[in-house]
């Protein structure tokens, strides 16, 4: 009887909860858990004797916290220290990562099938595999994208009082093989008069060279990358009009970084962790049976614990 209660209530609700999640921050699990019917906490027979397990007994030791790893997240984009540029401390203004739907409809089908046949180990493992695959696919969407390290405001200051006929940005990007696209670099005056703002086309060729320019007047200009040139190094320059302008070789620095990669990395790893912990419930027969036998409040608490990010 209670097996039927579980079958008819817990798994369908769980499957709906899994599929209805449109963003990890909003993940939640239903409160309608039912007791597992048969009161069996293990799904197996009681232990008999003192039989020794086959194979070598593992003797591994150590802790995760004790591990070491290479790479400590340091490094700079050389554009920020380009020749002639002032060393401007970047203001980190990374935007909040977007939410992504990450569980495909196929999980609904498998979860529904498992609800109808909760002791089917093959379905249980299939569901676990689908959850892990969906999680990996979802996390992969948060991988760094070309150009993201360059996103932000690039500042170049010209002290020349003469007229500047245009501003341009040049960049050369070390890239992996692949295609190069086009984007836009927005230029605007750092002075109070914002009427100088404009959009210049940023173009990339197959060698990774890029340039963008915007015809303008004079002053101090910010060049803002708003699209995705392939990442690497960049130098922005203000070029004065006419001949002999003193600003002809002024380089720019990334003054405000809006590189979203660090936050996306944290988000991706958090999602993977939560999904893997969730999947383990279905991978492990003993844990699967354990969760089934919990009272609704306890089960709810466990599943809620996966929503830590």
């Amino acid at each position, binding site marked *: 009887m209670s097996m039927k209660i579980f079958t008819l209530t817990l798994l369908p609700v769980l499957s709906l909860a899994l599929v209805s999640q449109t963003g990890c921050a909003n993940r939640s699990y239903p409160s309608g858990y039912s007791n597992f019917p048969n009161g069996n*906490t*293990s799904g*197996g027979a009681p*232990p008999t*004797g003192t*039989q*020794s*397990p*086959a*194979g*070598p*007994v*593992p*003797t*591994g*030791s150590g802790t*995760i*916290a*004790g*591990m*070491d*790893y*290479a*790479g400590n*997240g340091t*490094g*700079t*984009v050389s554009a920020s220290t380009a020749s002639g540029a002032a060393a401007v401390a*970047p203001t*980190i203004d990374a935007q909040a990562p977007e939410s992504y739907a990450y569980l495909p409809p196929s999980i609904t089908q498998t979860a529904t099938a498992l609800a109808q046949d909760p002791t089917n180990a093959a379905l249980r493992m299939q569901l676990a595999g689908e959850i*892990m695959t969906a999680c990996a696919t979802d996390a*992969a969407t948060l991988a*760094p994208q*070309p150009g*993201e*390290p360059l996103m932000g405001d690039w500042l170049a200051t010209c002290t020349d009082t003469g007229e500047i006929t245009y501003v341009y940005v040049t960049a050369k990007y*070390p890239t*992996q093989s692949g295609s190069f696209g086009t984007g836009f670099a927005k230029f605007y005056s750092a002075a109070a008069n914002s009427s100088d703002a404009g959009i210049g086309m940023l173009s990339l060729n197959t060698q990774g060279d890029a340039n963008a320019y915007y015809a303008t007047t004079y002053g101090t200009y910010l060049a803002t990358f708003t699209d995705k040139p*392939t*990442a*690497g190094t960049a130098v922005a320059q203000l070029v004065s009009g006419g001949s002999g302008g003193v600003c002809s070789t002024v380089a720019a620095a*990334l003054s405000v*970084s809006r*590189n979203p990669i*660090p936050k996306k*990395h*944290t988000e*991706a*790893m958090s999602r*993977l*962790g939560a999904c*893997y*912990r969730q999947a*383990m419930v279905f991978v*492990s*027969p*003993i*844990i699967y*049976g*354990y969760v089934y036998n919990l009272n609704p409040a306890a089960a709810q608490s466990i599943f809620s614990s996966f929503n830590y990010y």
Partner: protein
Amino acid sequence: MKKHLVQALFIVGVLSSLSFARTVVPPAPGNITSALAAGTADAGTQLVWHNQLIAECTTIAISFQPAQRDSYLTAKQKFSKGFCYMSMCMTRSVALDFLAQSSPNPANGGTTNTTMQTTYRNTYNSLMAQVSGTDCDVAQSVTAPVMPTSY
């Protein structure tokens, strides 16, 4: 002659003391693996251990976070490294579950079938060999996917 021998021994000692940084998911503490192998850890305890393992792995994988000024290629490598690390952690978690199933105590997920015990134990050893043999500092630089030879 004796001087050269001493020098050689000194050099060998220095070289052997050097530790090269590798990003490998370490084995579980011995008391945990022993309890799982013996079947003395109940289901609730196993759930806590798995959760704790993956939560710690997540913290470590997050620590690979690229710096704000890292280049795209560097950031991509660090992301791949985190992905690799999380995957190996999940593999280790699955391996520990097989270890629990290899125990002689069915009440805690084991089995009295010695043939199955051997199968589960071999699976555990195989998975752990994969985990301990995967250096995510190296794995992340491999661009072409390579299927494990054990499959």
